[in-house]
């Protein structure tokens, strides 16, 4: 007995929607089992992580704060992934975006005015773009795989951050703590709902998701991205340049990651610290896939992953679940999602193994079945 994957002629559309939901539910079930085996109360772990943040209105503002950067980065990544351009280094672009915004904040520290925040936002976008410029150049000129280069540049960004906050940018008032000075009121995002911690990041994330939806579904540029991703030869035939698409999608995803970095440093952090890289850039990869690489899907997926973050913090305090549990749940979710996807597009068929001479058959098996 041997199993073989056979491509389905018509993958069910319904299943495409059910799979993400099923993946979330399966994550809860498997998570409960794993944590029970590990000696925790598995059921309450799942309840604290997935239900408490939804049921408890006090946690909603936390959700908005956590979801915003995930959505902004996730939307950018999903656009690139649709074109088969694999930017894995959004975390690095997020850091450099935050650093660029910080640089502007430090320069304008003595100044005031409404223009400072927009300038920081532009700086953040530019920072993210600069960081993705290198993988884009290497990919289009030398065909270097962008997965590796973008990922490795993340670690360069972390070291750059550490150098700056431990060195030239260290605040003189921080008693030796590695951090910059606290941003002034013109450099910090306004709260949009009185009495909460929700800042401008949340509405910006929603606007970006809606704009991206319009771009992908209605514009020629969205069509170009989908074509390059789905059939590169057809894209060339249709007059779309692959290199141009790589450049644009990488710059968009890098720019949005940079913007998320700016919104974080000018928002919840309020200054640059070594703890700035929180893994949003990596989690956003899960968000992009859970959202089916669709901007609106990413919006919901961002909220789901935010739930797991917020719930993880809850579970840490209430049932002393280790912080690593959240990472475990998130990874489980991505695995289940990808596995579910395979089953939507392929069916498993048992085949009888005939004893055949491999040398002859190897080449012939690759021929189409019919």
């Amino acid at each position, binding site marked *: 007995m041997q199993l073989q994957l056979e491509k389905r002629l018509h993958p069910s559309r319904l299943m495409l929607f059910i799979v993400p939901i099923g993946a979330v539910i399966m994550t809860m079930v498997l998570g409960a089992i794993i944590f029970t085996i590990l000696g925790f109360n598995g059921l309450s772990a799942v309840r604290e992580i997935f239900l408490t943040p939804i049921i408890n209105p006090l946690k909603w503002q936390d959700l908005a704060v956590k979801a915003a950067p995930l959505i902004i980065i996730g939307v950018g990544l999903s656009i690139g992934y649709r074109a088969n351009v694999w930017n894995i280094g959004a975390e690095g672009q997020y850091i450099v975006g935050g650093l660029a915004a910080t640089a502007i904040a430090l320069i304008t520290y003595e100044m005031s005015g409404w223009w400072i925040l927009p300038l920081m936002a532009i700086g953040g976008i530019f920072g993210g773009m600069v960081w993705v410029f290198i993988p884009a150049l290497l990919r289009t000129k030398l065909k270097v795989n962008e997965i590796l280069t973008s990922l490795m540049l993340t670690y360069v960004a972390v070291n750059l951050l550490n150098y700056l906050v431990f060195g030239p940018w260290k605040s003189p008032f921080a008693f030796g703590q590695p951090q910059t000075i606290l941003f002034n009121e013109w450099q910090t995002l306004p709260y949009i709902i009185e009495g909460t911690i929700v800042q401008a990041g949340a509405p910006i994330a929603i606007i970006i998701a809606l704009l991206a939806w319009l771009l992908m579904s209605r514009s*020629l540029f969205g069509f170009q991205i989908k*074509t390059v991703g789905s059939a590169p030869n057809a894209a060339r035939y249709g007059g779309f340049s692959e290199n141009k698409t790589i450049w644009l999608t990488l710059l968009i995803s890098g720019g949005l990651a940079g913007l998320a970095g700016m919104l974080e440093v000018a928002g919840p952090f309020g200054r640059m610290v070594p703890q700035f890289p929180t893994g949003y850039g990596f989690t956003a990869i899960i968000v992009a896939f859970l959202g089916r690489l669709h901007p609106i899907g990413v919006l919901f997926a961002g909220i789901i992953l935010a739930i797991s973050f917020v719930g993880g913090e809850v579970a840490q305090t209430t049932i002393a679940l280790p912080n690593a549990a959240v990472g475990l749940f998130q990874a489980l979710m991505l695995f289940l999602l990808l596995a579910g996807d395979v089953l939507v597009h392929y069916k498993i068929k048992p085949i009888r193994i005939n004893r055949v001479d491999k040398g002859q058959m190897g080449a012939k098996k690759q021929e189409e079945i019919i």
Partner: protein
Amino acid sequence: MQKSQNIMLELKNISKSFPAVLANDNISFAVKSGEIHALLGENGAGKSTLVKIIYGIMQPDKGEIFWQGKKVHIANPRAARALGIGMVFQHFSLFEAMSVLENIALGMDKKISNRILEKKVQQIMQKYGLLLNPKRIVSTLGVGERQRIEIVRALLVNPKLLIMDEPTSVLTPQEVEQLFLVLRQLANEGCSIIYISHKLQEIKALCDRATILRGGKVVGECNPKKETSKSMAQMMIGTSLKTIKKSKKKKFADIGLKVNNLSLKKQGDFGVSLKNISFTVRHGEILGIAGVAGNGQNELQNVLSGEIVLKDNEAIILNGVAVGKKNATERRKLGLCAVPEERYGHAAIPDFSLNDNSILTARERKNMVRAGMINIKKAQDFTKKIIANFNVMTTGHAASANSLSGGNLQKFIMGREILQAPDILVVSQPTWGVDAGAGSAIRQAIIDLALKGAAIVLISQDLDELLELCDSLAVINEGKLSKPKKVGDMSIEEIGLLMGGIHGAVPKESSSKIKVETDAASA
């Protein structure tokens, strides 16, 4: 000819189904020993599935196989070879970097020493006049020679039945001639041959009997020598074929497409470089480009369509405008539309809707884009027009391209380009793998477009098609294009020699002018 009436192979009620298709439906037929038996049918009729069952690559869902009167179960190709069944595939499985002999040795079921193998190979080559140097590296060989390796490999097991799957699709007429000599000699020695093809002329010239398949069923049996190509084609497609109307008197207007000393470096390891190609096509003219597959046709297609952009702007001139440096979209705006050979993933995006596939190439000429946004209504209207005007069988404009059969998708693609009213059309293999009905509709559409004054370049490996449609003809070989000549001025022999790479040397005895009913292999 010595022909005993012994049945070599008999199939009874063979059925095989795949997801969504019944490839073989209750097929029964028998092959006598020493008989050359044609399996005739359109693409998708079930020929390939049937021979794969005979060769043990697939197992039938139902039905029995009798070999020399005894019921057998052919579990795999090794079992088939043990019975004495050999097969030569349409696509060869050879290792490019190894020698002929090494390739043959790799395919052997039993290990034999190289010396004995070489002796055997030499014997077979001598006996059947298969000229090959066993020491040559495969990558240096032409397609015809590669096929000979496969034939030698199949003959080494002393087959009693040899299956040939579309063997001539890659051969020049001269190579076809040589192949037929070998096959006839084999048949005279009592070996049965199952010959798969949709080239009716060849079947008439070679085969003793033909079983005709349509939609997975046996629909008839005939003696090809007593039938006409037309009557067999009608059995194959089940309806009568429309004859193509071509106006006799044609006058051509000014030059539409001019190609000047076009050269292109090899793209990637398996590409072919183009060398100093020059030709002109006038409005109303159809220029055919013949050649054996893989001699630069794809490169030429892509260079003309703008998928590969040249450094030399003057190498391609459209209606007086140099466009060598322009991309596909810019060329389309200037009136050049193109249809590449591969339908799935090149001419069309398989998992996109027909609407989206219309947008792919027609967006500029049909004004579907405004301020960067797509006007979906316009795309839908155009798609519906294609479906209606070109009789595309589909569930509608929102159906995905891969839900269409090959022939229907090709009709859609041709319709998409032709309804953009191109001034110049460059098209590759427009009827490759398309059923005869759709094929004749497509050919008629090409002729009608030329009548309206378009300049057309038709790249095809199907000589019959080229002779039927084209006004002038050139042959491409290893990236070099022969000087185009009027179709009536070239003999089949001359075309064949050019396809084989012999330029300029036209043998004197080739005086026979082209007739559409070619007697390619009646000798």
